[in-house]
Structure formats: C-alpha cells, structure tokens
C-alpha cells in the first residue's frame, strides 16, 4: 500500500544542494560573526544582596563616589525623571554593585544618624585608601590589619554613609 506521504516527497524531486550557495552564505555569516560582540546574557539568578543607598543628591553622590572610592556608574541603569532628577542609579567596583536613589518610600538620607555600613572587598585596599584620602573622604578607621585577617579602612561619604573597604591579607 502506498504511504500517502510519499506523494508529497515526490513533489520536491531530488533537490540538489548548490555548494557555491552554501559557501557564499557561510562567508557572509562568518563575517557577521566576526563583527558581533559577545552576547549579553542575564546571569541565572543566584542569591546575592545589593545594597541600596538613599542620597538627597544622587547626581552629586555619583560624582563623589566615583572620585573618592573609584566606583564607575552602570549608565544603562540610570533612570531620570521629567525634571531631570536621577531617580535610580547603580555603581560598581570590580564587579560589586551598589544601587542608589533619592529619598522615597525606600528610605531617607542618613544625615540624622548612621544606621548601616557597606563592606566592600577590593583587590588593592592600600591604593583605594590613598585615593579616598586624596579625595578628602572622612576616614573613620585608619588603614589597619584587622585580627581576623583583612587589611581595611572605613570612611564616611559626602552624605554620611559609612563604608568599609577591605582586602584579605593572604591574597595581598
């Protein structure tokens, strides 16, 4: 008995493949690949905690944190409202991220009293310390070797958030 599917198979005849067409398409694709950047892949969610800080003046804080602590802004994260005020921003240092925004439902500026501290592990804490000193960050604990095995210092930023930067001594 005929497989009725064979009727359809017959429609195509024996479609030969044109090798030169394959080669042309391949060359064009390889050119495209050579000029393509790596993919931006969203990292599968793994547990991590990102601090969110409140600043009265986010734009100013961004400049200060960049100068004194060497953070770089993740510019595509920045949200600006119709008045031109930054409503959200994110900064990073060696891959460690901190987010920030103006006073809102999330919280208020800490000017009335420090309520938390940010601990950032860095590769070169001495260089980082020199940079922060040069930018007149208010040092709260001078650079020291802590007994639990880290070299660290603590400083206050322009609006009073407390930051600790540390480096494991063994890796230094």
């Amino acid at each position, binding site marked *: 008995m005929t497989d*009725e599917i064979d009727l359809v198979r*017959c429609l195509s005849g024996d*479609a030969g493949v044109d090798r030169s067409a394959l080669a042309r398409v391949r060359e064009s694709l390889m050119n495209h690949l050579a000029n393509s950047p790596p993919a931006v892949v969203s990292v599968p969610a793994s547990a991590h905690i990102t601090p969110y800080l409140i600043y009265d003046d986010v734009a100013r804080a961004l400049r200060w944190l960049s100068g004194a602590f060497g953070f770089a802004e993740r510019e595509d994260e920045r949200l600006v409202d119709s008045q031109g005020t930054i409503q959200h921003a994110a900064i990073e240092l060696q891959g460690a991220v901190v987010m920030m925004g103006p006073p809102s439902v999330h919280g208020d500026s800490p000017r009335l009293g420090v309520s938390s501290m940010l601990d950032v592990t860095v590769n070169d804490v001495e260089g980082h310390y020199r940079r922060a000193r040069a930018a007149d960050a208010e040092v709260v604990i001078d650079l020291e070797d802590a007994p639990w095995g880290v070299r660290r210092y603590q400083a206050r930023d322009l609006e009073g958030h407390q930051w600790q930067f540390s480096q494991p001594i063994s890796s230094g």
Partner: protein
Amino acid sequence: MADDSDAEVIAASLSEPAAFGTVFDRHAETLLRFLVRRVGPDTAEELLGDLFRIAFEARTGFDLTRANARPWLYGIGSNLLRHHRRSEGRRLRAMADVVALPGALEEDPVASEVDARSLASGTARLVAELPEGEREALLLAVFGELSYEGIATALGIPIGTVRSRLNRARGRLRELLGRNGQREDVGDNPRCLETEP
C-alpha cells in the same frame, strides 16, 4: 569542538561568536535542501543567510537542555517561510500545471505514467491549498524529515497537535489517492516525476 553537542557549541558562542560557525557547518546543508524544496534555489539562499543570522542573534534564547539544534533551526526557517507563503503557493500551483500539461508527456505514454502525472499534479495542488498549520507540519515531516517531537519543538506546539495535523493531512492525501483510482501496482512503487521544467 567536534564532539560537543549543539547545545555546548551554542553555549560557547555566547562569548565567542565565531563558534556559531560550527552550527552552520553541521546543519546548513540540510536546511538549504529544505528551503530549496520549499521556495526554489534563489530565495532559499537568501533565506538560509537570514535563518542563521536570526539564529545567531537569538542564541541566548536557545534551550541548552536540547542537545540537537536542528528542530530549533527548522522552526526559524518555518517562520521565515511564512513571509513567502504566497510565492510558495504559486510555485506549487505552477508545478501542478506543468505536470498535468499534455505536452509534458512523452509521445506514447503508458497509462500508468498518465496516472502518476495526474496524481502528482493533484498532490501539488492539494499541498498548496492545505491550511497553513497542516502544511507546515506536513512539509517539516516530509522535506525536513523531523520526528513528531522535532516538529513540536520547531513549531512550538504540543506533540498531540502535530499528530492531529499530520493525520488530517494524511487523510486528505488518501482521499486524493482514492479519487485518482490509484491502482495497487503503481501504489506499491510510487514514482517521482521530474517536475522542474
């Protein structure tokens, strides 16, 4: 890289775009053959380029638990072919006419040849007029040689839907066979006619 699954190659191509060339080398010939059968060589070459560029840009969405990328590539091909539905239909109808043309017959054709030509013509017309979902599933099965599961992956539909679409298409083809009064001796050895002019 030769032993890596498609999924591993695609994963590597996320950071190293050039690695995606391996996906082309593994599947391009098969997909080109499929596209030529659907829309002819010129459009097929153009679509093959589009297909692999789209696949490359969409590789972040590839389900890395699937070792074989071929059904996924066919799915992209099927999507591209939707823009060529009209020309594909025209091609099939033209094929139906050419095959049925008396001039296409040899001087003294045997009866079985006439039957076969009429059947091929009817098949081309029937395929041209199938509902889109049925036709796509049927042609992926026949020209793409995909399994039911492969078709389900390519079209993003449940495997039960693939089965019912193919069953309906088979039913229509069986009806066509019946209408043509296909003789058993021909039916046992279906002959494919040269349908290109």
